[in-house]
């Protein structure tokens, strides 16, 4: 009432002073929604007045409205109204704060159940909130060049090649089932390299099925993106590359010991099963035991030491299609075939392999070596008499590496530069020097029976070498975890041709091989 009268006084003062309107006229004024008194200018003043009066009334009306607004504002500053306003504001703030808390709780709860997407150095990854279902997309791209020296242009094609171009789909389904699907678009034909699933029952018991690397060769089992050189050594010529099969495997005591044993179709030396089916009845049992006794110990200098043995055994039955069980040939570092069997030769009996192997990694230093035996009974069907020979081929290699920039070397974890390549920051990535020596010795029995006129042998000693020795040096530049550049040189010599023969002109063993490799590799 007090504030209402204050308004009435102001209004009356303004209007009354001009027109002498009665003050009490406002006593019955209605209260507006905002609590302010509305002001009605008597109709007669507007209807009966001159235009000048009307304008003056209009101006006065505006003044009155402005005054009413001011009075309302003043009323807001009374203690009671202030308290009410503060209380309202306090509630509003509290509500907003609480709403924010609830929104955050909701967002957190939602995030806990929402699928996750990540992108980084390890590729793309999509996973369910509980990570039981994961889909990862990786890729490997290797763009190489090979330049052969002193080959009189007779062998070894200089040029660029797309060595590997592999999109890799991997991940897990239902938590315990890992999968991997890796086609390869590099080389001369598109093929499936890996297609397998692994059931992770426990660390010490897993089941792997599909197409994957059989557990024999140490260098062969190293991931393609982690090998020291562009091409694997001569020792890998004697072990299988990829095969279809079923394997049981696991780690014991946190990886101190690991095992793999499996049943496979049986791939020939250095060969992958290109087709995804098999025409033979026989199967190969492949197995590997590997130990890293100090893997989990505090002895830093021995943690990276591992040793083991891999092997395989199969009995090729000549009644079935056994030509596929023979190696398509042993190749040099430059991927030239320096040994092949004659066309009429086939697998005929037991084929076993054994490969003792070891590696040692400590800080920037790495050393890897293996010995491989491939013992296979083969026959031919020459008219001059069937020849059946137990061919005992052997090979070995030793490879060392040193990271000049001090990063840690490892068998299969790749290299993570301390500083990624960024010339603007004077960062140059990681640099590694690598060296390797390898030999492969072919059983001389495969050449016996050869003469210029009658070739009863299993291989032609004038076009196939009975031994090769290769050394290689290289420099690897890791720009970051995903991009790597290689430069290496490999020199391969061949043993004297068997039985005093001479290698035919233009054949691979006729001269030593000198090849310069480069590679740009992108892997994520």
């Amino acid at each position: 009432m007090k504030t209402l009268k204050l308004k009435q006084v102001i209004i009356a003062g303004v209007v009354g002073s001009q027109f002498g309107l009665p003050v009490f006229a406002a006593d019955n004024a209605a209260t507006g929604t905002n609590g302010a008194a509305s002001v009605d200018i008597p109709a007669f003043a507007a209807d009966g007045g001159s235009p000048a009066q009307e304008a003056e009334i209009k101006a006065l009306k505006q003044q009155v409205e402005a005054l009413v607004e001011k009075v309302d504002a003043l009323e807001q500053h009374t203690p009671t109204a202030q308290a009410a306003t503060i209380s309202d504001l306090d509630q509003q703030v509290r509500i907003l704060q609480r709403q924010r808390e609830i929104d955050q709780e909701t967002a957190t709860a939602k995030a806990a159940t929402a699928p996750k997407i990540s992108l980084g150095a390890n590729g793309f990854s999509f996973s369910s909130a509980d990570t039981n279902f994961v889909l990862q997309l990786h890729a490997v791209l290797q763009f190489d060049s090979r330049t052969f020296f002193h080959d009189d242009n007779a062998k070894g094609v200089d040029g660029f090649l797309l060595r590997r171009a592999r999109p890799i789909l991997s991940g897990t389904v239902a938590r315990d089932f890992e999968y991997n699907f890796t086609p390869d678009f590099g080389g001369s034909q598109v093929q499936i390299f890996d297609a397998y699933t692994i059931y992770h029952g426990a660390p010490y018991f897993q089941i792997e099925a599909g197409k994957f690397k059989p557990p024999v060769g140490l260098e062969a089992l190293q991931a393609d993106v982690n090998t020291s050189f562009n091409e694997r050594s001569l020792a890998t010529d004697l072990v299988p590359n990829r095969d279809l099969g079923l394997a049981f495997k696991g780690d014991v005591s946190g990886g101190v010991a690991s095992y793999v044993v499996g049943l496979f179709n049986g791939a020939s030396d250095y060969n992958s099963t290109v087709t995804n089916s098999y025409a033979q009845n026989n199967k190969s049992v492949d197995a590997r035991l590997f130990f890293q006794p100090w893997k989990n110990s505090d002895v830093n200098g021995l943690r990276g030491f591992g040793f083991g043995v891999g092997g395989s055994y199969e009995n090729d039955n000549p009644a079935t299609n056994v030509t596929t069980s023979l190696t398509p040939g042993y190749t040099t570092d430059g991927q030239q075939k320096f040994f092949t069997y004659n066309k009429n030769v086939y697998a005929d009996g037991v084929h076993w392999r054994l490969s003792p192997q070891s590696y040692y990694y400590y800080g920037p230093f790495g050393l890897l070596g293996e010995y491989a035996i491939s013992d296979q009974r083969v026959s031919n069907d020459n008219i001059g008499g069937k020849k059946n020979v137990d061919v005992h081929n052997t090979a070995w290699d030793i490879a060392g590496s040193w990271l000049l920039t001090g990063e840690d070397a490892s068998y299969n974890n790749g290299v993570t530069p301390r500083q990624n390549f960024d010339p603007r920051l004077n960062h140059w990535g990681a640099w590694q020097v690598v060296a390797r020596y390898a030999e492969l010795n072919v059983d001389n029995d495969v050449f016996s029976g050869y003469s210029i006129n009658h070739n009863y042998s299993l291989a032609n000693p004038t076009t196939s070498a009975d031994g090769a020795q290769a050394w290689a040096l290289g420099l690897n530049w890791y720009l970051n975890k995903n991009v790597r550049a290689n430069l290496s040189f490999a020199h391969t010599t061949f043993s004297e041709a068997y039985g005093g023969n001479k290698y035919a002109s233009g054949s691979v063993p006729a001269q030593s091989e000198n090849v310069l490799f480069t590679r740009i590799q992108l892997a994520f």
Partner: protein
Amino acid sequence: MKTFLYSLLLAALAVSTNAAEIKLLNVSYDPTRELYADYNAAFAKFWKAKTGDDVNISQSHGGSGKQAQSVINGLEADVVTLALAYDIDAISTQARLLPADWQKRLPNDSTPYTSTIVFLVRKGNPKGIKDWDDVVKKGVSVVVANPKTSGGARWAYLAAYAYALEKNHRDDTAARDFITKLYKNVPVLDSGARGSTVTFAQRQIGDVLLAWENEAHLALKEFGADKYEIVTPSLSILAEPPVAVVDKNAKRHHTTEVAKEYLQYLYSDEGQEIAAKNFYRPRNETVTAKYAANFNQVKLVTIDQEFGGWTKAQQTHFADGGVFDQIYQQ
């Protein structure tokens, strides 16, 4: 040597007869934390005396609907003690972890205690809230959880709706208008009943909290009877929180026997006393009489009478696009 072997044999026997430790997970709704903290200790003692085995009971609490969904999504509850039967029905129908007739396995449709919805207001009841009509008045700020996620909030919604139906001679349109006004007074929706209590009592938001009766009493104990008071409306709803063994989980965990006994023991004198002490209305008449002072007289309607059971009520009011969605978007 003989003595040594004998000792060895005794030691082996001692090891082999060591008491087993059984683990049990009870997935429950928001305001039962204190009830089951007391009850679990009592049951563990009972079970130890009965079998010699230790039972370690873990609790999980949250909005009843959310908890049910967690079990459906794989939370391996051995038993569920939720706010309403519909949520356990969902576990049965969607995940098939227990049979559809689970409610028949224990007395009182597997509801060993009941509760209802009351008002918690600030001391002195500054807004003069006495019944549901006061709650829907303009300018009254009401705190209640989201009925889409909270069992208690669904009971509160239905209590208000039942009151409106009765007041308006079963006129559903008038009841909808009433419930619309009520939710226009709700400034913030928590996901569970405990969250609403936090909003009202800790964050000091609102004039009235629509609360489980036990939750309202707990708030008085927790925050002080000098700060809040309970107002019992003229009409409310009989809330019957059910319990059930999640058969498939319990079977997989080899806990079926202890899980069954865990729920059965809720009906025992000791179980009923613990419920009453935690302000849940016991089923046992003797215990009810003993704790009568804890519970105000109120006219209680049942969901079956007023809404035709949970399935119908859920579909009509709380399913996507149901009455609640319609009125809350207005």
